[in-house]
């Protein structure tokens, strides 16, 4: 129940994000979610795409440093307190979040939260036990 995420190293230079998205568009790769983490000197772009291997290959060909990591996608109702509920569970279960980001799916009913935990197996087990829906990569792309 893990989702593969593409991570790309970005120097803080203008136009780099545009180049990446153009590279993916040229290969007809669809971006479902993204987040950018940045420091004073560099950034890390994290992407959920429909064709992971293809995306990695084309970005590498174009000179980017690319890594694939596993993340967990949790579906919650898109209403007040949706995120708060998950985070409360995470706190109670003593799970350590490395980073997270979120997007709302097309229907607007549900939101998808992308998490990277230090202990992924424990996180999956805890979230499922407490009744959350964890999505697969295919499910996300089908949303």
């Amino acid at each position, binding site marked *: 129940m893990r989702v593969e*995420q593409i991570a790309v190293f970005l120097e803080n230079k203008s136009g780099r994000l545009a180049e990446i998205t153009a590279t993916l568009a040229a290969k007809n790769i669809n971006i479902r979610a993204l987040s950018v983490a940045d420091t004073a000197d560099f950034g890390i772009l994290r992407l959920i795409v429909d064709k992971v291997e293809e995306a990695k290959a084309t970005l590498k060909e174009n000179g980017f*440093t690319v890594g694939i990591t596993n993340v967990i996608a949790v579906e919650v109702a898109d209403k007040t307190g949706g995120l708060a509920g998950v985070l409360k569970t995470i706190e109670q279960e003593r799970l350590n979040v490395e980073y997270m980001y979120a997007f709302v799916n097309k229907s607007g009913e549900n939101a998808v939260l992308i998490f990277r935990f230090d202990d992924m197996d424990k996180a999956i087990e805890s979230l499922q036990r407490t009744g959350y829906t964890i999505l697969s990569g295919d499910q996300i792309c089908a949303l």
Partner: protein
Amino acid sequence: MTLFWEEEMETLPRVGLESVQLTRLKKLVARVYKTVAPYREKMDAAGVKPEDIQSLADLAKLPFTVKEDLRDNYPFGLFTVPMEEVVRVHASSGTTGKPTVVGYTKKDLKTWSGLMARALTCAGATSKDMIHNAYGYGLFTGGLGAHYGIERLGATVIPVSGGNTKRQITIMQDFKSSVLLATPSYALNLAETMESLGVDPKSLSLRVGVFGAEPWSDNMRDEVERKLNIKAVDIYGLSEVMGPGVSMQCLEGQTGMHIFEDHFLPEIIDPDTGEVLPPGEKGELVFTTLTKEAFPIIRYRTKDISRLIYDTCECGRTFVRMEKVTGRTDDMLIIRGVNVFPSQVEHVLMGTEGVEPHYQIVVNRVGNMDTMDVEVEVSENIFSDEIKVLEKLSGRIQNDIKDMLGVTCKVKLVEPKTIQRSEGKAQRVIDNRKL
């Protein structure tokens, strides 16, 4: 009226000086040949015997000594006396992991402090002075070398070392420091800190500054003189030859530094062919020590570019003057007074798992401080989707460089292939300082 420390020697006519030099050179070569195997082997390979040295011109028959010889015989292999006679060691940056080590006997320290006292006298210092020694104390020859020279002169030494700039200014005010010893960039840093604290340099007792250990331009000298309201003079030295006090600018002459030729024999060579160049030409400076005991050195290639000026100087000293060093024949950088070889940085990077040998060193002067950025390409091996992992990596490299080189730098992670690949020799260094 020129002040002298040892007037007779400092004003000896050239004929007399050359006779002193030749006597000392012959003795040195005979001793080194007898006691140091690496020197003997090199001389044998070149087919030269100590008896072949019959004139100063015969010096050119002897093989050169280079920094690699020091590395190959690390740490004490080129010492000519048993360790029990060595009373101090100093070290400077080697080209790779290991530093370059030099040693001194009791007599060497006496010679050195005498030459340093001579140098300070050139700058007009006397036993009445309060001398603020802001050169770093430690393995670096600057701090201790100057320290014992000041004591020998009979002046009062303030062993303040580097750093803690505000406290240094308080000390200057309260102790009435009259002579400042520092790197020129640190002198400017002091001047600017005074400005920001609202301390008027005219209210201080500073009269003269003795600056060295890093290259500086005439413009920088003017700036230091104006901002600190002092006269600035240049001192030169390197640990392989002795340390500070190999040559010194006098107050009277405006150009160049007098080489203390009764102890150090200079040559200027063509760095490509090794040929000795005629007087007055620009080339690589080579030194032979004439009086050192523990660590004498024969024809040491300094890799510093300079020129020798044989005109008589207004001060009355007959010692030849060397022009301010205008460059290097190798890629050594001097960052805030510390010698840095790109190969040392490479050594650290290669010792960091996953890091590829694509890096670049970018040097800038921000305000008056040198900054060094080390750009490292992020390969898949070291890449992570977590910021903290990457920051830990750059922090670790930064610490390792600080540990090994003694210089604080900033490690910047860059995208792969962004560092220019050159054909042949990679351009490892971009030095944006305008000296």
